[in-house]
């Protein structure tokens, strides 16, 4: 793949036992726009800031929260183009599973396969790690689930998590506000409040995106009108 001069792995161990490229990838994630997720008792919500480069950008065409399957959605912090590639690969893996077993892929399996792809890019010749961390929200037979996948390929199941610029403030806020028996609507309110914490400027339905999945097992991105309703309730 490429010139023989570049056929070694770009992620090689440092003397301290770290993979420096992955640390740099995590830095790229940490300077990306804040995103977060919460697992409620009857669903999962994920949300992100959607700060665009200028007011001239057609914000309706930008969609940061994507479906992987009808019952699994995902959001990212970090590099948008890397996210697009991962979404494409994950969707294909989900479809291949469905084609083989005629059964929708369980959330844990899809997360594991996506994480495997990300790990492969830390150990192959001529490629670099992905500069995104993903939050995967799904609802299957095991109930609501929220996973975070990092550039190294490690994944964790969370009750609530945040990533990106405002990660420490957001996580502190979530630790205080999160309760195990929260319902989905409460979780959406808490998500909005958490985003508001570190938000530069005025929060509105045009500069955040929210996706949710409930017991109906259908992942949906909320319309701006629905976001406005939730924002009004929060005020």
């Amino acid at each position, binding site marked *: 793949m490429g010139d023989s001069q570049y056929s070694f792995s770009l992620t090689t161990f440092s003397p301290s036992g770290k993979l420096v490229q992955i640390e740099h990838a995590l830095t790229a994630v940490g300077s990306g726009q804040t995103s977060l997720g919460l697992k409620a008792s009857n669903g999962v919500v994920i949300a992100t800031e959607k700060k665009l480069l200028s007011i001239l950008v057609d914000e309706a065409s930008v969609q940061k929260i994507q479906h992987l399957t009808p019952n699994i959605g995902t959001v990212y912090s970090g590099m948008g183009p890397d996210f697009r590639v991962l979404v494409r690969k994950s969707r294909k893996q989900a479809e291949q599973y469905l*084609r*083989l*077993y*005629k*059964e929708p892929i*369980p959330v*844990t*399996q899809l997360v*594991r396969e996506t994480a495997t792809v990300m790990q492969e890019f830390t150990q192959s010749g001529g490629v670099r790690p992905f500069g995104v961390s993903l939050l995967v929200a799904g609802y299957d037979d095991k109930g609501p689930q929220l996973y975070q996948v990092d550039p190294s390929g490690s994944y964790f199941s969370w009750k609530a998590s945040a990533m990106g610029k405002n990660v420490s403030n957001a996580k502190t806020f979530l630790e205080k506000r999160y309760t195990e028996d929260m319902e989905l609507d409460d979780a959406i309110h808490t998500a909005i409040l958490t985003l508001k914490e570190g938000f530069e400027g005025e929060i509105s339905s045009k500069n955040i995106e929210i996706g949710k999945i409930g017991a109906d097992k259908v992942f949906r991105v909320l319309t701006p009108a629905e976001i406005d309703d939730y924002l009004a309730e929060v005020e």
Partner: protein
Amino acid sequence: MSIFEYNGSAVVAMVGKNCFAIASDRRLGVQLQTIATDFQRISKIHDHLFIGLSGLATDVQTLYQRLVFRHKLYQLREERDMKPETFASLVSAILYEKRFGPYLCQPVIAGLGDDNKPFICTMDSIGAKELAKDFVVSGTASESLYGACEAMFKPDMEAEELFETISQALLSSVDRDCLSGWGGHVYVVTPNEIKEKILKGRMD
């Protein structure tokens, strides 16, 4: 003589009330010569899922090994047993992979699904699934089996009656087929137990 008739076989599965039965003959032949009278055609995938394979004996054994391999990996990865419907889709996909050089087997799959609902299906050697609500048959004795099952089958039989019915259907059908027989092997599976019985029929 067709390659499917080289070894001789008979497999049948029937649905009962929250249970199923799967049965096969025990003869392994090389055309007209009988080589073994204890050949295993039905294998357990997990406690609520069985597969019976008729056709060329070498492919029966190889295909069974491949399926057990796939199921064990699935169990380790997903931390659960495969549902019968899922397993049937997997078998169909594996058979179709060899579309232009197929495994010369016809599988019969029987299992208890969610809520202990019995599931049976059969497919041809390239993976065309055929689901049925009552019984499925396969092997050199299949034509006789169709007739016997059609005549003897009743819906919602309990385990004991199901055992009697499937045994009679199997033994009377293999008696009309020179390439299958030499006894029978029956499994009756309910949500709580697996009953395995060997039948003594005409040994010829």
